[in-house]
């Protein structure tokens, strides 16, 4: 949290530790409000007030509590848990309470120690501020005052804090400043710097929320093609372990056409976060060609880091996302995994001895999940710009059972559901998104965009593909009983077409340089190529060609290789020609 408030902590009140149990500490004689940040014990461990009962205040502590003993001091800052907002958040990796991990490493080495505080944004680094207002302009809360080039990809916009009264600009600076120096003064006497603070548990204000109408293009065929997500939409990715949640989330972070990506590693593996830290600076952003890190803010609270900070990390993330949304950007936020977040709530709740709800989760689980996803959306900001937050939450249901509370409560809120399937993962069908269980309620909203930008018959071709896959899953049940060869010829052919849809379209190799990103135009051409095969094959069947001969043409297996072709347009054209030739010469 903010160093500024830490070095000269305004101690509003001081109390004594009464008891310690894991991350939960109770204190007596502490004068505090709910959600105030406090510092606990001689080590000054950061914590947050979560319950007040008579003279006893309950605190969740964001650091290990080993060795903390009753009688120690508890100091209240009187401030709610907040994040520092300003230039310098991109290309940074934070822990769950916005302490930059690189700074922590340089201060305490490879292992995370306790009681070390660090500001969320560097207070000494200077930034080139170019004003967009002049003296005499009247500004209101949220208005953009100037531009700071934050990274190669992103221009940071310095805004009037949302809780400001606004007023007439009396002084404007221009040039290099650090984040705490005043760059604009108002006639109300208010001095505005690049840095602002915002309490994480409170959504930043907006003008109104709109219905999303543009897709978040992910470059993943199964997602863009069958189950699209809107910019400003919400999606859940539930799946048992090993089904590819993290790879799917990372693909989104890498290839989606968002301006800003906030990636929250909530209670997941340390090595996975390291992979992101290692890879992202080297990978190019498909939008701008600059390093991916230049548009990314990472929040890593791995599973072995303190559980209370896991509870707060999603709020830290979404608050940062809202700040960039206010600048008018499209933000994509990934939370991997929301189940770990829910478990952190459960753990704290059980330490508080609250009456448990379903499966030991607190009764307020549904409400918290809903509040979180509601902070996503396509918004008209208070400064008149339009920005969006698309929220994608991974869910890790115990035993892969989707009927458990976190999955069920999430599904009640989100509109896109990408169901990961362990069976598909086992046979290395990736991305292992199950096409019969998944859905997207944004399809109709987004069709006009695809029709206008990709192909006029996009919705029809998609429907054709869906129908073939549906028919396949029905036929598979019969095949399981009687074998494929017992089916009539036309149904055998349908199975063959469906196989190409599965292998050539739905499957995508995340580790292949070309295949890993498939623009909608390419996805559409793959559909078209398979449809050509379908149409020609059925025509040949009609003309009396035996089904074995049709499926044996040597052009057909090439349908599965379109994904890996760089020059896919020429490849598809040639392939379509070959399919036509080879089939037509048979009758």
């Amino acid at each position, binding site marked *: 949290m903010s160093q500024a408030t830490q070095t000269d902590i305004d101690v509003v009140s001081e109390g004594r*530790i009464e*008891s*310690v*149990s894991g991350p939960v500490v109770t204190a007596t004689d502490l004068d505090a409000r709910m959600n105030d940040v406090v510092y606990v014990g001689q080590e000054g461990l950061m914590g947050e007030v979560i319950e007040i009962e008579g003279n006893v205040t309950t605190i969740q502590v964001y650091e*290990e*509590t*080993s*060795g*903390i*003993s*009753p*009688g*120690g001091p508890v100091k209240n800052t009187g401030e709610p848990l907040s994040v520092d907002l300003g230039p310098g958040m991109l290309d940074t*990796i934070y822990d769950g309470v916005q302490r930059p*991990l*690189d700074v*922590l*490493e340089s201060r305490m*080495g*490879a*292992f*995370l120690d306790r009681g070390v505080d660090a500001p969320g944004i560097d207070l000494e680094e200077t930034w080139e501020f170019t004003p967009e207002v002049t003296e005499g302009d009247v500004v209101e809360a949220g208005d953009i005052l100037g531009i700071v080039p934050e990274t190669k990809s992103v221009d940071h916009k310095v805004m009037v804090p949302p809780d400001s009264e606004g007023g007439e600009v009396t002084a404007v600076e221009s040039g290099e400043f650090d984040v705490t120096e005043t760059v604009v003064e108002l006639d109300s006497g208010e001095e505005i710097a690049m840095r602002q603070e915002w309490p994480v548990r409170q959504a930043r204000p907006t003008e109104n929320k709109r219905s999303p109408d543009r897709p978040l293009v992910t470059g993943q065929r199964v997602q863009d093609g069958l189950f699209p997500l809107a910019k400003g939409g919400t999606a859940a990715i539930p799946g*048992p372990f*090993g089904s590819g949640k993290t790879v799917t989330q990372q693909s989104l972070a890498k290839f989606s056409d968002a301006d800003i990506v906030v990636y929250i*590693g909530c*209670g997941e*593996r*340390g*090595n996975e*976060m*390291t992979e992101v*830290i290692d890879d992202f600076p080297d990978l190019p952003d498909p939008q701008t060609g600059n390093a991916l890190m230049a548009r990314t803010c990472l929040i890593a609270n*791995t*599973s*072995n*880091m303190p559980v209370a900070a896991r509870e707060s990390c999603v709020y830290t993330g979404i608050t940062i996302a809202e700040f960039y949304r206010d600048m008018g950007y499209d933000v994509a936020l990934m939370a991997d995994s929301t189940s770990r977040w829910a478990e952190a709530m459960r*753990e704290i709740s*059980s330490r508080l001895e609250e009456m*448990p709800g379903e*499966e*030991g989760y607190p009764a307020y689980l549904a409400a918290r999940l809903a509040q979180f996803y509601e902070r996503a959306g396509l918004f008209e900001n208070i400064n008149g710009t339009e920005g969006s937050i698309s929220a994608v939450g991974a869910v890790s249901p*115990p*035993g*892969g059972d989707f009927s458990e509370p976190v999955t069920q409560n999430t599904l009640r809120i989100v509109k896109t559901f990408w169901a990961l399937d362990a069976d598909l993962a*086992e*046979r*290395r*069908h990736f991305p292992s998104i199950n096409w019969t269980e998944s859905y997207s309620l944004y399809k109709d909203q987004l069709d006009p965009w695809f029709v206008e930008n990709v192909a006029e018959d996009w919705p029809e071709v998609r429907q054709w593909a869906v129908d073939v896959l549906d028919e396949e899953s029905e036929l598979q049940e019969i*095949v*399981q*009983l*009687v*074998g*494929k*060869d*017992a089916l009539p010829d036309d149904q055998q052919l349908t199975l063959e077409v469906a196989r190409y849809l599965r*292998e050539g379209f739905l499957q995508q190799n995340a580790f292949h340089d070309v295949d890993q990103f498939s623009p909608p135009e390419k996805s559409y051409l793959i559909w078209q190529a398979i449809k050509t095969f379908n149409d020609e094959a059925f025509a040949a069947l009609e003309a009396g060609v035996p089904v074995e001969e049709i499926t044996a043409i*040597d052009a057909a*297996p090439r349908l*599965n290789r379109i994904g890996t072709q760089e020059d896919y347009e020429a490849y598809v054209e040639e392939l379509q020609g070959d399919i036509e030739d080879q089939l037509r010469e048979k009758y």
Partner: protein
Amino acid sequence: MKEYQTITEISGPLVFVEIDEPVGYDEIVEIETPGGEVKRGQVLESQSGIAAIQVFEGTTGIDRKASVRFLGETMKMPVTEDLLGRVLDGSGEPIDGGPEIVPEERQDIVGAAINPYAREYPEEFIQTGVSAVDGMNTLVRGQKLPIFSASGLPHNDLALQIARQATMPEAETDDDSTEEEATDEEEGSEFAVIFGAMGITAEEANEFIDDFERTGALERSVVFMNLADDPSVERQVTPRLALTTAEYLAFEKGYHVLVILTDMTNYCEALREIGAAREEVPGRRGYPGYMYTDLAQLYERAGRIKGREGSVTQIPILTMPGDDDTHPIPDLTGYITEGQIMMDRELNSQGIEPPVNVLPSLSRLMDDGIGEGLTREDHADVSDQMYAAYAEGEDLRDLVNIVGREALSERDNKFLDFADRFENEFVQQGYQNNRDIGETLDIGWELLGMLPKTELNRIDEELIEKYYPEDESETSEEAVGVEADD
């Protein structure tokens, strides 16, 4: 040091003591029974006036007159390189009759989390010599890859085989000619093995120790033994002692450490026992709600750190109650670890050694640890293709039971044959057989050669040209072709 004789309640593994000075959370306690026996414990909950203590050695013999000493520090493990070759009990006391251990340092056993920013991403291939692992679920340095097993399956044999055979491939490139003999002697490329036993039977323990002694592996091992008849609460500390030792050897002394923890199921049972004694609100199947966090604090202690020589690789073993991988113990483990190796009862009864079912097995770090320069350029594609082909053959087996083989097409029959040969030739290898990665992949190609080229849609066309056995008799040439290349 403050001493009390104010025990108010003894319940299961817990002791409650009235205190007049505050004690710290997690602090270590010594309890001396009237009989003079000293037991150790840890503060679980600390309030002004009363402390709850979990006693590692069990509460038998403690009465209300026993004296309780708070040592004013959290639990530490005395660490030194001299620990290598030693056998210790579950709370870190030597039981091999050897000399007293003179510690170089005493380290907190809880262990701090590694800053993700300071981690180095694991991508160095470990050759275990087991095809089902190397070829299909590659282990890399710094990974945590558990074995999901069940009662009656030979998980110990597999763990021992891995401990015995695991090497770094660099050692082999040094001297190509005598590589086979060299790897066994190559000290530098071998792992220091930390073996943490929790609640296993004396017989199992002997099996491990005997094998370590027989192969000379004991010299480079540290063994922690908490046996089935040792106090279950002690199982809470055993893995932490083992991992603290591992971290010390790896990150301060530069060893590559392989930690085998068995059996994690017993550890979780102990966790549940303490949770129940504390009357906590239970989570799924009575296990505490914080079990995920607790397990993560063990498993996440695997890894590599930037700028440090060594690494900690973990192979925890757990037995799935009722062969059920949705049981909370394997389930939570799978969510934390980087994959799993699944043992299969059916393969075991077919006599496959090791009976690894590769389909539900997974190594998440495989993709970055294999390929050109690491293992071989065709590794990823071959393993993908074998997964897909084996899965297809496996599906067809259900069908064969209904309609018989004759009713299936020629293509289907090929996949069925593939699945059979995959199990009998690729997975089956025996616990004493050490295959290098080239051999593993060559067997893979031999099997893939049963399928027509057009079916190999997971493999790059150039690689098919290079490796596909055109004629059964030509397969032997492939291995030579690789080394000449590049």
